[in-house]
């Protein structure tokens, strides 16, 4: 008994012996498109409020996330325009994909994006999100972001300067005010297409269908 060493690794559990029922922990429901408020005045007011209070999710992918600190601090100060960093996806509204996106990161990005609440916007920063940029022939980075997430605004450049990012935010504000930035509803409507694309490149799919 004494010479026997028993090792239990909690992270390494057999697939069939999970010790819990996944259905209790993951909600299997599909996302639904939510139509905006019918009343025109209220809808305009809501759009205005959303355009003037954009909370960016603190999630940096690739080299573009280094453009964000100068954006928040004294040099460019986007808080003038009501743009603030927000560390949790539950409260954030804007997802900046800042640069190249590897397949491993895409998994985390999808998870974070799906946890955000409905009016949510995606900003593709840099050429890498447009067509792969200088990593167009890489074995591990995606080429077109809009095959995996609904992108509202692309900001081209390698790297775009913070001014370009502010210009992108202005464009996003214009879209929101006109009621055209319906990325979340687009995602819900074309859910199967997006999921098929995501599953094509994420070979070991171990996420729930939708991360509520």
């Amino acid at each position, binding site marked *: 008994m004494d010479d026997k060493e028993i090792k239990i690794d909690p992270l390494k559990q057999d697939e069939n012996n999970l010790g819990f029922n996944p259905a209790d922990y993951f909600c299997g429901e599909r996302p639904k498109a939510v139509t905006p408020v019918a009343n025109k005045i209220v809808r305009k007011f809501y759009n205005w409020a959303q355009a003037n209070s954009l909370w960016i999710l603190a999630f940096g992918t690739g080299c573009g996330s280094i453009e964000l600190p100068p954006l928040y601090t004294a040099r460019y100060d986007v808080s003038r325009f009501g743009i603030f960093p927000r560390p949790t996806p539950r409260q954030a509204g804007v997802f900046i994909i800042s640069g190249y996106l590897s397949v491993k990161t895409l998994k985390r990005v999808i998870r974070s994006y799906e946890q955000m609440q409905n009016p949510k916007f995606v900003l593709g920063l840099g050429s890498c999100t447009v067509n792969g940029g200088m990593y167009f022939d890489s074995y591990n*980075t995606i080429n077109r972001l809009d*095959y995996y997430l609904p992108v509202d605004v692309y900001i081209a450049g390698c790297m775009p300067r913070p001014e370009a990012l502010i210009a992108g935010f202005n464009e996003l504000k214009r879209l929101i005010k006109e009621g055209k930035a319906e990325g979340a509803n687009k995602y819900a409507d074309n859910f199967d297409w997006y999921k098929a694309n995501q599953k094509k*490149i994420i070979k070991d799919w171990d996420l729930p269908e939708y991360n509520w």
Partner: protein
Amino acid sequence: MEEILKRLDERFYVREKKQQRPNLLFVTVDKKVAVEAVTYLRDYEGFRHLVMISAVDYIEQNLFQLTYLLHNYQLHSDIGVRVFIDREHPVMDSIHHLWAAAQVYQREIKEMFGIDFPGSPRVDEPMILEGWDNIPPMRKDFDTKKYAEETYFPREGRFTLDPIKQMEKKNYPLEAEVKYEIKRVVRDNRDKK
């Protein structure tokens, strides 16, 4: 460095040597004695720091080359220990018992080149490429561009316009057409001769 090389040669038979800089030396040793050579350099010659382990795919010679780059803090000099291993049976002895940091390099090399290091902790788990089902991507026979085009929905390339031609066609459409037609005829006839 000369003396270190001499002592190393006495013990392990250096097959090839290359003095890159006064303080950077590359030696090639046999696969069987590579770990001993690295251990000797670490414990007796003061090369205590493992800078990196790198791998090169020499597909023409059917070989992989591993380089253990070591650094000596007293001499401010580096030694790269090179080992050639067979491409058909890519297995190498692990050195994670010498430096814990070697685990990460060995995991990466396992993933990118498919060189196995039996006994190295977590060497079989995916590190960067989660769920990779192709041949290891850094091998020369892996066609990266083809794989990327098949997998990642490439965006169609743009067409580019020569500004001189474009402005000519826009401002003087007739003259430009005649000019380029003449040029085309001349070129075609030249090619025929």
